[in-house]
């Protein structure tokens, strides 16, 4: 028992030393995917936002201490299209220059200021327009709000937000109007009771003759169509590619060991084949897990520093671990399969890289499956990399847990087992015929 442990330890230490001294392998396994995640998450950020529905960062500087300011803040805070931050008159109010700088830096896409005494001025204006203010007073002008925006915002988006703001202001106006009617109604009530045919005037807070125009309900949308953000797509996608790229170092080291005769020597020493196999699988399994953790850290903490979205990973760490383990075993099984059928390291590198890239392209790693036509999506469902990616998306985007990722994990594990069985069969066949 102890001997087996020492043999396994020797095999793992050897393999780790070999990998750490192989700069090309380190670049392929760690640097390449992390660079890809960074570049593509940033490059594709906006196009993913558009697919997911627009959600703009909005700053409201509310210097009004009245109901109008409160109402506007409420409307925008509740809107699904805005991520709203509010500065109130109680806190320090940013200067025009600071606001401008924030917009230029892209911290907010839009901002508007609700000037002091907006509620009072608006009320006066409404009452004057309705003729309810005593005459002779200085006429009150319309209150002007200015919408500021990030200079890179597209014109159509700016128009949309302007329209949303105007619509909100109209809502506030009609609310004020209804209030005035309510006050008049109250005063007329005693008279109305004495005049037949004149109903008592009721003044509701809001009118809703028309239902609000909305997107179809998001929760009613098919589960799989909920869209990821750029980083939610790219981080797990390139993790899958990075995991599968271990095919190259794994198969190359194995073939070299066969070529130079160290496998022969190990066999002659009576080293059990399963120890040799476990000595290969364990270190690469650990490498896969490190790849995932590094890329998650990159998405959660590094990417935001470059202006990217924060990677949100749901709240099912066990499910993440499950997908990661299954995906890693699938990648290792595939690597062993390639190694068992290749005669030279060059063959393994060429065939390994080509097959991994094709599986990645088909499986929605490079181009998300969302944008593929249905036939291509069905083809992509055959790629093990797609199973791993969908597993991660279940957790990150759709709030799935262990139960939701079981189908993908099962597919990956079956794939791993089939690869391993064929590889072991092929190795045994080769070994019986060594010269």
């Amino acid at each position: 028992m102890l001997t087996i442990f020492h043999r396994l330890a020797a095999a793992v230490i050897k393999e780790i030393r070999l990998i750490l001294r192989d700069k090309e392998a380190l670049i392929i396994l760690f640097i390449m995917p992390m660079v890809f995640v960074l570049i593509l998450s940033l490059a594709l950020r906006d196009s993913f936002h558009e697919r997911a529905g627009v959600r703009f960062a909005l700053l409201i500087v509310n210097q009004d201490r009245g109901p109008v300011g409160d109402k506007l803040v409420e409307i925008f805070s509740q809107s699904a299209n805005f991520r709203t931050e509010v500065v109130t008159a109680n806190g320090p109010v940013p200067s025009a220059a600071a606001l401008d700088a924030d917009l230029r830096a892209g911290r907010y896409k839009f901002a508007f200021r609700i000037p002091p005494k907006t509620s009072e001025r608006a009320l006066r204006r409404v009452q004057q327009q309705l003729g309810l203010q005593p005459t002779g007073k200085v006429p009150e002008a319309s209150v002007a709000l200015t919408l500021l925006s990030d200079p890179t915002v597209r014109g159509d988006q700016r128009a949309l937000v302007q329209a949303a703001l105007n619509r909100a202001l109209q809502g506030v106006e009609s609310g004020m109007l209804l209030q005035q009617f309510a006050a008049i109604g109250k005063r007329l009530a005693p008279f109305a009771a004495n005049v037949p045919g004149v109903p008592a005037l009721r003044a509701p807070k809001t009118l809703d003759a028309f239902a609000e125009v909305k997107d179809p309900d998001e929760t009613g949308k098919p589960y799989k169509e909920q869209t990821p953000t750029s980083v939610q797509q790219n981080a797990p996608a390139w993790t899958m590619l990075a995991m599968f790229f271990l095919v190259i170092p794994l198969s190359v080291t194995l073939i070299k060991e066969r070529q130079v005769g160290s496998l022969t020597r190990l066999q002659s020493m009576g080293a059990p084949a399963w120890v040799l196999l476990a000595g290969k699988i364990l270190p690469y399994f650990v490498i896969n897990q490190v790849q995932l953790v590094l890329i998650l850290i990159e998405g959660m903490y590094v990417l935001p520093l470059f202006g990217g979205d924060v990677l949100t990973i749901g709240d099912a760490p066990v499910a993440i671990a499950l997908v990661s383990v299954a995906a890693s075993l699938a990648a290792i099984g595939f690597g062993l399969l390639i190694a068992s059928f290749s005669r030279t390291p060059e063959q393994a590198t060429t065939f390994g890289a080509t097959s991994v890239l094709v599986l990645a392209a088909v499986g929605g790693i490079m181009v998300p499956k969302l944008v593929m036509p249905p036939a291509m999506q069905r083809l992509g469902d055959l790629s093990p990399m797609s199973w791993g990616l969908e597993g991660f998306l279940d957790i990150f985007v759709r709030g799935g847990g262990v139960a939701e990722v079981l189908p993908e994990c099962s597919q990956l594990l079956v794939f791993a087992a089939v690869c391993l069985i064929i590889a072991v069969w092929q190795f045994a066949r080769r070994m019986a015929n060594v010269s």
Partner: protein
Amino acid sequence: MTASPIVEIRQLSKTYPGAGRPAVDGVDLAIAHGRIFGLLGPNGAGKTTLLSMLCGLLPPSSGSLRIRGQDVRHQDAAIKRRLGLAPQDLALYPYLTARENLAYFGGMLGLHGAALRRRLDYCLDTAGLNDVADRRVETFSGGLKRRLNLVIALLHEPELLILDEPTVGIDPQSRRFIHENLKRLNAEGMSIIYTSHYMEEVEQLCDEVAIIDHGRIIAQGSVDELLAAPREATIELRTSVPPPPAAQAALRALAHVHTAEFDGKFVVLTSAAPQTVAPAAMRLLHENGVETTSLSFGAMHLEQVFLALTGTRLRN
């Protein structure tokens, strides 16, 4: 010295799938304990196949193979502990240092802790690699790699050391170093099987020799026995210029000459009466305008035994 056999091979054959003829063909061999046994033959003669079967790496097509009386096919693990194989290829990891290579293979043998360290030191000492123990093997010369390749086979103190062409492509200094070490290990009681296609090596080093060609053992015995065996002598001549066709025909027709081979300025004759043929051949060449620059016959060495047995030179 009466020595019990450590290896007994009977009617051993191996035919690879799809191959037209067997790589090893009905081999019978008995190798005595405590000897250095040379297995001599040209490349492709079947040496490595024979050793692979001996080490349990390759199943025989037929025949039996016993080490210390135990059938190799049935006593796999126990027998493997008695064997140390240094394969013909440099079975090393270039990115690892000499010490790391030894530690890995030692670990795979189940060695650890103080026992492993003791064997590492022993092997580094034996190979004379102490000064370069912590250098990566990729920086080693061919000779240093060969030495390391050899001592890895000593890690588990085997009874029988099997060396497949251990001196291919190395400098004379490393070759001498390896030979001295092998003699010392043998004096300490280790049995050694040594394959080579270099005649002189086997002649200098081995107590017993088997000559293998086309998968068959064509001669076996002590070096002295093989050299003393009565058979046609070989007469080798070097000439100033390649003999013209007329001279070649005349040499073939010379009395007592059995065969004549020509290779540029190199002439090899076989004859049962070398004392008569040698001067006659020189005279005949002289008459054809060809001078003899060197002549040798009588002092047999294994190269000539091989030539006499197979009619061909060792293929390099």
